[in-house]
């Protein structure tokens, strides 16, 4: 609760204030070595998987396209290292399913410079043309949804985009990669914003940064373009400030209508790191072969932000930061929304912004009590849903009722409700179960 005389920082209603553990935010980004073998899944984005265009035994150069995009809502995959294709076979992925991947044995002796680039002359291209060029560099959203960025930027028919929101909130605890990018690569972010504005046609861009990253704000301010089309707005440090709906609400006071996309209210949102990569890679015509990943957590001996080649298996990554033997639970992403994984053979992909390792003690299962109707979850839900009722319904498998009467599909799984529940009821998990059931049933019908 904010007292009346306190200065108001732009924010949204409800939400939570978890412990942030953002110690790695002060460490500069460092480079990560190449694992002996890289496992590059063909599907690292939302949309159709890429189609492999290499064969087993073929030698590939770093930056070379090894799988091509399958249509507009797909992205090409570039070789993350120079080496030889050892296999194209299923490997485990974070959902627990198996996915096709190209396995590259990395040439140890190679310097691993990017060997293949395909630069275009970007001047004079209109928005759609620029988007097509953008597809070639294979950038997917780094904010979590891994939607192909070029496709996201093109305004849907009949929509006029008036604002590009650049999401620099990074509200998840532990994660600091966006923070470091803003501090270290402000210039490239600005370049990326420029390209993105050209594609989506927005006359202005607003960068939203939480007030616990004021050094990032300073760095960005120094790099702002002179024409004033880009502004920075500080928002309250609160989870989930970075979610599209809440940030849009905090910055513009607009609400995305239920069941619609944010483009319907003239807004398109990109993550800062997404735009940093666009700004860096697009002029060079270089493919995405690596990304900055926060590696942290109580079980990690050398936490930090690392530039990790895509396809690096977690086993190798955790070994290197001194975590493998002490880790009990490994999470891809932040602690609030990230998924725990069942296998260390899973590789780092374009959507992995953080790898967190927790020790035995931190993953103890608390006793679950029945819901005591305390309403904490209702007061925490940033979407103002009714998690109490949905949780009770889910326990009785009343999934249809949840969807019909309680806006199940609007839940963006931020986890605030589970976080505050004194009964330790796994609310979000139940909502995900409900959604997955309804989706499966719809697909099979």
């Amino acid at each position: 609760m904010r007292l009346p005389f306190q200065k108001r920082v732009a924010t949204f209603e409800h939400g939570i204030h978890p412990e942030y553990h953002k110690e790695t935010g002060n460490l500069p980004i460092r480079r990560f070595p190449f694992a002996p073998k890289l496992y590059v899944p063909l599907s690292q984005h939302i949309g159709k998987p890429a189609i492999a265009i290499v064969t087993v035994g073929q030698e590939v150069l770093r930056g070379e396209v090894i799988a091509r995009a399958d249509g507009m809502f797909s992205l090409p995959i570039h070789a993350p290292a120079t080496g030889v294709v050892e296999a194209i076979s299923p490997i485990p992925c974070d959902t627990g399913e198996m996915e096709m991947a190209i396995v590259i044995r990395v040439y140890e002796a190679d310097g691993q410079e990017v060997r293949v680039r395909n630069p275009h002359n970007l001047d004079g291209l209109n928005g759609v043309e620029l988007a097509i060029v953008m597809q070639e560099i294979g950038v997917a959203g780094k904010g979590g949804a891994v939607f192909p960025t070029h496709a996201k930027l093109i305004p849907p028919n009949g929509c006029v985009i008036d604002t590009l929101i650049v999401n620099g909130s990074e509200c998840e605890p532990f994660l600091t990669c966006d923070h470091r990018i803003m501090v270290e690569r402000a210039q490239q972010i600005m370049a990326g914003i420029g390209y993105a504005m050209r594609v989506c046609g927005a006359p202005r861009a607003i960068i939203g940064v939480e007030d616990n990253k004021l050094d990032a704000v300073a760095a960005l301010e120094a790099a702002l373009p002179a024409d004033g089309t880009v502004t920075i707005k500080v928002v309250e440090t609160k989870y989930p400030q970075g979610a599209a709906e809440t940030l849009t609400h905090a910055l513009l006071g607009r609400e995305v209508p239920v069941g619609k996309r944010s483009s319907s209210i003239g807004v398109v949102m990109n993550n800062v790191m997404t735009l940093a990569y666009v700004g860096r890679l697009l002029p060079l015509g270089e493919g995405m072969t690596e990304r900055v990943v926060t590696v942290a957590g109580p079980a990690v001996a050398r936490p930090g932000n690392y530039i990790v080649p895509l396809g690096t298996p977690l086993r190798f990554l955790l070994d290197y930061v001194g975590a493998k033997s002490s880790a009990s639970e490994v999470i891809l992403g932040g602690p609030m929304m990230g998924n725990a994984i069942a296998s260390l053979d899973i590789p780092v992909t374009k959507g992995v912004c953080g790898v967190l390792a927790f020790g035995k003690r931190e993953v103890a299962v608390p006793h679950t009590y029945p819901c005591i109707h305390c309403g904490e979850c209702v007061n925490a839900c940033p979407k103002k849903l009714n998690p109490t009722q949905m949780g009770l319904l889910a326990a009785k498998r009343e999934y249809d009722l949840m969807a019909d009467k309680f806006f199940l599909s609007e839940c963006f799984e931020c986890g605030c409700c589970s976080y505050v529940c004194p009964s330790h009821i796994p609310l979000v998990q139940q909502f995900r179960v409900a959604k997955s059931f309804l989706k499966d049933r719809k697909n099979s019908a």
Partner: protein
Amino acid sequence: MNNDTIANILLTTILPGNFVLAMFLGMCPFLGVSQKLSTAVPMGIATAFVILVASVSAYFLNMLLVHFHLEFLSVITFITVIACAVQLVEMFVKKTFPELFRQLGIYLPLITTNCAVLGVALFQTARNYNFAQSLAYSIGGGIGFTLALILMAGLRERMQLSNVPTLVQGAAISVILGGLLSLSFMGFSGIGGGE
């Protein structure tokens, strides 16, 4: 003896003298048709309507009976008229609002055997209510019945989401809820009566 004011009658029949919770009238639909709000509300309204119809017809019928000195026929004539009225309402709804009928179909005939309907007719006669008082009595009774039904439905919908022990599930838990509701309504005793 029958100098109760309209407001008093209304208040008494809705709260402290609630047909269901204090007078035990209309228990069967109260326990039977209260699983869901979506059926409880139309059922309550339909019953309230029939109660009103029954009360008005009973009032005039009673005038006739008194005129002919046939008071001993009151039960049989009231109930027959009620039964026919319900059947007419049922046919009417079936013809004009088939959708509503599909939802309520099974419950409509039940109203005939709802003690509250006959109860209103008999009690208003026994208390020598005049027309306005009878009207207030039946309207209050209908509202009270609907109120109890709706409260009960809300509680039972909630019960469906809790882990009621198997032994208590079903009728027992509804009866207990009814008891607790009735216990709560005891707090209203005295309202509308007394000074």
